């Protein structure tokens, strides 16, 4: 029972053509084999980094202004980094869909969206909890917080878009365009604290003149950042593998439905 890939014109934009090079790397079978090899390593690194980062974070001294609430930074900032990092993964995927028509590009974007939404929610929630004792308010409609809320809305909109359009190639192209348009929000988030008057503090790690944090806070933060990065990579690879399986199931179900039609008595 072979499954042809060339006769169905609805999804032919995602086909692997005979081109060598990058197309060969896009083969799902090779990708799944690669995931099997790297995943255990990523899991171990994530657990180790989380353990070290949490230990260093809770060993850090109290900040002279913020007191012990500075420890919220060790989960808030990495969550924000990964919220924006996930979006950049989706931007790469969108370019892969529109420019190179890479077969795994839409899979990568689609798998990153729920993870990015979760990290964005975490950034908003932990930031709000941190803001209450430091700013005296849970929320304010300033540029940083509002642009970050828009990021969450973009993530949710993209997830809804993917789910609402049945035809994979069409949904991939539409989502890719929306992702690229929404990418304008990333520099707005990053530079909003410089461009606008806001309660949020300016950047203290990714600065042109180097980090402004004391080493006691910087090292735990960087290690927690790495831990969140490896957690994202681990979950993203697993989610991509799931997405590939979901599409394989869809293909097989359609094949099964086509084969059952002649015996159903209906005339199509």
């Amino acid at each position: 029972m072979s499954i042809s890939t060339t006769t169905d014109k609805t999804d032919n934009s995602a086909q692997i053509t005979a081109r060598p090079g990058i197309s060969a790397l896009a083969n799902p079978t090779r990708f799944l084999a690669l995931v099997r090899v790297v995943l255990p390593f990523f899991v171990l690194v994530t657990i180790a980094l989380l353990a070290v980062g949490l230990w260093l974070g809770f060993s850090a001294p109290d900040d002279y202004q913020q007191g012990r609430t500075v420890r919220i930074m060790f989960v808030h900032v990495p969550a924000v980094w990964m919220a924006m990092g996930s979006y950049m993964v989706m931007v790469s995927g969108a370019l892969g869909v529109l420019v190179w028509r890479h077969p795994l590009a839409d899979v990568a974007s689609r798998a990153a969206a729920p993870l990015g939404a979760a990290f964005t929610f975490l950034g908003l929630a932990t930031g709000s909890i941190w803001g209450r004792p430091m700013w005296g308010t849970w929320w304010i409609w300033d540029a940083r917080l509002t642009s970050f809320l828009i990021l969450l809305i973009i993530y949710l909109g993209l997830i809804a878009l993917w789910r609402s359009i049945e035809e994979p190639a069409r949904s991939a192209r539409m989502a890719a365009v929306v992702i690229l348009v929404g990418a304008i929000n990333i520099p707005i988030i990053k530079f909003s604290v410089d461009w606008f008057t806001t309660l949020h503090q300016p950047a203290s790690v990714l600065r042109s003149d180097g980090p402004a944090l004391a080493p006691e806070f910087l090292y735990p933060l960087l290690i927690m950042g790495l831990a969140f990065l490896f957690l994202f990579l681990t979950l993203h690879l697993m989610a991509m593998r799931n997405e590939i399986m979901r599409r394989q199931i869809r293909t097989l179900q359609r094949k099964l439905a086509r084969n059952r039609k002649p015996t159903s008595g209906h005339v199509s």
Partner: protein
Amino acid sequence: MSELFGTKYFGFIASSYGITALVLLIMVVWVIVNQRRFRRQLAEMEALGYSRVKAAKSGTVDGE
């Protein structure tokens, strides 16, 4: 616990770490549950004689 979170801001720090742990746990469980569900469905399809190997090798991630 007061050693880790302090006493004055205990609720804020503990809830930040708590919600982070909860959301990360939900993400991990979501990925693993999906993985098991899709693997089971593929195994059922294979039992009917439909091969995912053919779907994967057929040239698309959509398998179309």
